[in-house]
């Protein structure tokens, strides 16, 4: 079932002439993981803000086209230190901030918070003061805080930017798990190497418009690699002057060698 549908969506930030999004049409189904890739300024973050109903409602600006959401959305922004509520003594309180704002009964808040803390492996930090956490720990707390609100559509903007490799791997596993549970996932990331194992579809954005849509194999496409959006393996293969098609992952490369 469809969770999000954009039809010919264009968006202009306040006091700008050119749109940050140009005629974007996109659907995300429940249980599906869609990854947005593109150069800086391609419009991936703006698309997430539109999908989250934050643009233009909070940011201002103008939206053309239509955006239909079936589920409540939750968005993880790329700067965890500006997402903390500043109203929590402990990590547990921080994660409970959102569910409390939804007016849920306290037992439901406790259940969702405990579940989110377990999912992000944050139980040992539950009593810590959020202001004493590292960037990576705080990023996991913010992700837990969004998941504790039980959104049907989860939007991630560079979710692994603050995480170490272990934390990133845990997060990608969690994202797959969330999709299995039926949540629709739309994420913008520059961690392209993770996408073959994570994403169901990849959307390549360029100058605010959709340039191409496809399976993660798109990240080994010649045109994509020429634009610097290939996986590491595909990029190295291309740089070495080896013949195409480029392998997407190390596994694919090994198969080619054999």
């Amino acid at each position, binding site marked *: 079932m469809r969770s999000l549908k954009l039809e010919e969506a264009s968006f202009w930030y306040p006091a700008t002439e050119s749109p940050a999004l140009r005629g974007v049409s996109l659907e995300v189904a429940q249980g599906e993981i869609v990854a947005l890739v593109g150069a800086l300024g391609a419009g991936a973050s703006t698309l997430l*803000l539109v999908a*989250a109903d*934050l643009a233009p*409602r*909070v*940011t201002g600006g103008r939206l053309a086209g239509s955006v239909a959401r079936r589920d409540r959305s*939750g*968005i993880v*922004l790329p*700067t965890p230190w*500006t*997402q*903390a*509520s*500043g*109203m*929590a*003594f*402990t990590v*547990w*309180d921080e994660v*409970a*901030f*959102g*569910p*409390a*704002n*939804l*007016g*849920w*009964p*306290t037992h439901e*808040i406790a259940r969702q918070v405990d579940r989110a803390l377990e999912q992000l492996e944050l139980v040992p930090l539950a*009593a810590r*003061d959020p*202001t*004493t956490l590292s960037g990576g720990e705080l990023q996991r707390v913010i992700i837990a*805080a*969004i998941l504790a*609100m039980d959104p049907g559509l989860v939007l991630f903007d560079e979710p692994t930017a603050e995480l170490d490799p272990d934390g990133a791997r845990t997060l990608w596993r969690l994202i797959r798990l969330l999709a299995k549970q039926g949540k629709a996932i739309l994420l913008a990331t520059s961690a392209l190497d993770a996408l073959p194992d994570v994403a169901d579809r990849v959307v390549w954005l360029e100058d605010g418009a959709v340039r191409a849509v496809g399976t993660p194999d798109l990240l080994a496409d010649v045109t994509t690699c020429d634009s610097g959006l290939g996986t590491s393996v595909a990029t190295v293969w291309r740089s070495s002057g080896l013949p195409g098609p480029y392998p997407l992952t190390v596994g694919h490369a090994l198969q080619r060698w054999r």
Partner: protein
Amino acid sequence: MTGARLHPFTLLAIAGALPALAWILTAPAGAAATAAVALVLTLTPGAKLTPGASPGSKGIGISQGWRQRLVVLRTAVLTAAPFWLFLLLLHDVPTTLAIGLRITTMVASFVWLVAALEPARLVEAMVAAGWRASVAYLLAATLSAVPVLKARAQRIVEAQRCRGLSPRGGVAARLRALRALALPLVLSALHEVDERALALETRGLAPGIHRTPLAPPPDPAVERAARWVLLLACLVALTRRFM
């Protein structure tokens, strides 16, 4: 009872009543009394101005020690000091005393309130009392702005020191450092406002919501009565002053 253990409404009532009484009561005796009370309050356990030193939910109100209390007192005194200087330049001694003591009461009360009031407890108390969560957050965020900006300024100064700009030295050097601090401090704070607005929206803090109070602070009858007494005291003082 320590400041941080009092109900947030009681803290607000005290911090509001002291300046009110300072201006209502005759100077210098009345203003001196309120200033003394306000300055003593800054030394009460629980007052602190260091973000990140929160004691944790189980330890709300636990004193961080005399050092933190002295920091609160010093902040109040240093903030009030320039007012005394200007008053001395502009007025005679009796007028300086009268206005200076009142301003000291205001400053010390506010500094004590900022140091003793946990914004999260204020939000919980206001939500439990039926206030809108967005209004409660707005008030709490305003009160927590002082320590947050102080910490941000500290980070900027440290970054500038790493690049060779020292805030130490003579008056000219300090003024240069102050000018170099002001712009990034203001701009970064303004930039963060936009991001924070997005973050709070996505965390469900929107106008019209009905937030569930997670741990509303207890509001004993004696404190509720004390708040009424403070209000009555202000009204009585006001009546006597003008009758």
